């Protein structure tokens, strides 16, 4: 190989002393590969490659017969590296690795050559070229596997307890579920009492039960549970460690600190209500209030007789910039409160000015109809032409709104204007996100690992999210997600131990200059500077992406199983056939 004259990048392979003995198994996959690629030719070619001592073709390498051949051959020919040239490693690598392990070979001494998805299937009209490409792919794979070294997946124990941050409906539900499964829970709430947002609400749609009724029951259950340690007026100050072994520092309002060890963490910190300062005269006139404040008035029965009530939807939500998201719960909250107002003052005129009414699902949609039947008036307005307060006189607010369906300006004189404002992330969420090293999304809410496939996990193992901390939710949705988060957290704790990733970054301390670039780059917070000022990888936290290694200014970081040397050997083999 012709490496450029190099200063320090490529460390020449100090291979283990043992001679390399590579076996290459080329699969016909019925006619899937063999019908296009000349498989015997590939086998013949493989035998010319350095360190390849054995090669054969199989009709189906993944059949039990094929797998047995691999095991037999490993023993018979004393193979210490195996290549299977067949399909994609994304589906079959696990199987072949397990086969190698059964024959006593470390599974990281195996590598797959994808000559089906990336070759025979894609080049069916060009069999000759496909065969050449298959040879190259096998050559590249052999070049890489030659430099493979055995890797270990360390096993660690999982502490069977959870830290639940937030004592609202979500946090309490998760805590009860986990305690019910036999795990210890520490439930931390920054307010002096449990309950969260529900403490301030009046009735819940669609059951119309008092929010306090259900809440009191669950608070009581949490208090009675001996496995739940409640810490109110307390915040999480610092979290170190990783899944199975988080080291948490708590701080109470009075400044006392407490430390505990937990295996998993659930974030259930909820959300705040957006305060629409200055919008529609809010903050200036007492008869312009938020939907949240209306809940309070309804709860305390402080609402006087009303003539006209106007509710304005999407105040400070679904904007062009800033809070672009839909807060999801405001439409149903407005419908519910409009109906309650109507119940209290049947003669009142209630308007809901909306942009789009989100009453998803059959139940919510039937509420929309019910509200129409009860005489609540719906006026659609457009983002470009929002309602405008034109005058406030004698306790009456005069509003002009462009009725987007009628196409004309409408004037409404009202006694009370109620603004439906979105839920927003709490002010201290960013701090918590940094303490936990988990991300916030573009809307400021906690950001899950994958919107569809891992909606409750963070990308960081062992930390989960539920409730409105994740996105605006009603109580039923929060409860469902909390139960989900509790189940997710229970998995590693029920098993009690876990195997960690073998493909991790490794720092050469003698090369590290302590610049800290990797610390900043690592999306998992897996790298810290130790007391010597040198970067240190917590292998359990590392996911093995390799970005730190590719960015390290001193080239002090090696990515196991994807070293510079391995990757380059693989690449060179692609266009420099049979050079060694």
């Amino acid at each position, binding site marked *: 190989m012709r490496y*450029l004259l190099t200063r320090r990048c490529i460390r020449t392979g100090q291979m283990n002393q043992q001679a390399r003995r590579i076996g290459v198994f080329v699969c016909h996959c019925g006619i899937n590969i063999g019908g296009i690629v000349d498989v015997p030719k590939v086998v013949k070619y493989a035998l010319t490659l350095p360190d390849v001592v054995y090669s054969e073709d199989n009709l189906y390498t993944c059949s039990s017969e094929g797998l047995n051949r691999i095991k037999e051959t490993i023993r018979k020919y004393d193979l210490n590296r195996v290549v299977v040239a067949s399909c*994609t490693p994304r589906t079959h690598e696990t199987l072949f690795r397990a086969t190698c392990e059964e024959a006593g070979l470390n599974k990281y001494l195996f590598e797959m050559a994808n000559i089906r998805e990336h070759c025979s299937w894609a080049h069916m009209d060009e069999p000759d070229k496909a065969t050449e490409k298959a040879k190259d*792919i096998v050559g590249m794979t052999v070049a890489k596997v030659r430099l493979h070294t055995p890797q270990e997946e360390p096993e660690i124990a999982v502490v069977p307890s959870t830290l639940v941050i937030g004592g609202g409906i979500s946090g309490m539900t998760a805590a009860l579920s986990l305690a019910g499964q036999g795990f210890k829970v520490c439930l931390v709430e920054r307010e002096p009492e449990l309950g969260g947002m529900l403490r301030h609400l009046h009735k819940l749609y669609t059951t119309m039960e008092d929010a306090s009724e259900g809440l009191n029951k669950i608070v009581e259950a949490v208090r009675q549970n001996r496995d739940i340690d409640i810490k109110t007026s307390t915040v999480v100050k610092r979290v170190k460690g990783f899944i199975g072994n988080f080291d948490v520092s708590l701080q109470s309002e009075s400044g006392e600190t407490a430390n505990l060890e937990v295996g998993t963490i659930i974030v259930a910190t909820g959300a705040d209500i957006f305060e629409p300062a200055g919008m529609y005269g809010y903050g200036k006139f007492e008869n312009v209030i938020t939907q949240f404040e209306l809940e309070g008035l309804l709860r305390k029965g402080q609402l006087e007789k009303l003539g006209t009530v106007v509710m304005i939807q999407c105040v400070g939500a679904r904007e062009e910039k800033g809070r672009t998201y839909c807060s999801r719960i405001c439409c149903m909250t407005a419908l519910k409160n409009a109906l309650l107002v109507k119940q209290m003052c049947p003669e009142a005129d209630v308007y809901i000015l909306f942009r789009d009414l989100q009453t998803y699902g059959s139940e919510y949609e039937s509420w929309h109809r019910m509200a129409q039947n009860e005489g609540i008036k719906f006026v659609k307005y457009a983002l470009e032409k929002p309602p405008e307060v034109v005058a406030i006189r004698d306790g009456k607010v005069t509003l002009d709104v462009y009725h987007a369906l009628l196409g004309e300006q409408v004037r409404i004189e009202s006694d009370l204007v109620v603004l439906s404002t979105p839920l927003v992330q709490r002010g201290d969420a960013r701090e918590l996100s940094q303490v936990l090293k988990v991300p916030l999304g573009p809307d400021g809410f906690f950001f899950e690992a994958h919107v569809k496939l891992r909606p409750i996990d963070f990308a960081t193992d062992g930390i989960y999210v539920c409730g409105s901390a994740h996105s605006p939710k009603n109580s039923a949705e929060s409860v469902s997600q909390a139960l989900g988060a509790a189940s997710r957290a229970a998995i590693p704790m029920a098993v009690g131990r876990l195997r960690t990733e073998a493909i991790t970054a490794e720092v050469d301390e003698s090369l590290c*200059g302590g610049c800290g*670039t990797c610390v*900043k*780059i690592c999306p998992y917070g897996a790298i810290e500077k130790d007391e010597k000022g040198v970067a240190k990888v917590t292998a359990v936290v590392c996911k093995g*992406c390799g970005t730190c290694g590719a960015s390290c200014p001193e080239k002090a970081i090696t990515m196991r199983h994807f070293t510079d040397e391995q990757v380059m050997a693989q690449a060179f083999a692609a266009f420099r056939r049979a050079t060694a």
Partner: protein
Amino acid sequence: MTFEPKIVGFLCNWCSYAGADLAGVSRISYPTSIRIIRLMCSGRVDPVIVLEILASGADGVMVMGCHPGDCHYIEGNLQTERKIKMLKKLIEETGLGPERLRLEWVSASEGGRFADIVKEFTDQIKTLGPSPLSGEKSDPVLLENMQAAKWAAEDFRLRVLVGREKELIDEGNVYGEKTLQEEFDKTMDEAIQAEYTRNRIYLMVKREPQSVKQLAKRLDLDAQKVLRHVVVLRRRGMVTVDRVEETTPIYAALELGK
């Protein structure tokens, strides 16, 4: 014989590699030019590796990752983007042509898009012709330029700038001062040029000790600028005064013991 390009493709395991799998599963055909290397994340692609592969005669290099926002490793792909941006500028300096390197986002569901991109890039490389660094005899000047580029990509300064770009722009430095993207790009461009030129100077004096004036002529640069680079190289312990001819110092390269 018609020119059949050899292209090395670095594909991330989670999106692009799966996209290439899907192209196969869907029996979508594309040119046989690409040789795929699976990495866990496109962020693993070290600029040095790309330069090394291009210098060794690959006709083209493709890097493919998840679409922004879809990265399995949160934002490894954005680091890739910063690296490729720097690399393209560096390759442009060498004269090889940045069109031989391409970054694309391909998701696991975009088998068709993967095939289209390979086809399009292959056509582009065919138009460009074989790499001047392929074959038995490669252009020695270009090779030395690639070497200078590789060393520049290996050195602390460019790597730290690329690695810290997001932080400097989004979070600010230790004093909380944020950098504007334009300012950063300007600094980056200057750093690329400076580091590349310094490494060329080093290689030139390594071949044959020479004066600033000679270097300036060969580099087609202002002598003042060259002198400043030489001063930096001396400070870094890479270059020393070999001898003084009349009043002109002649510089030579020091062996680097790393």
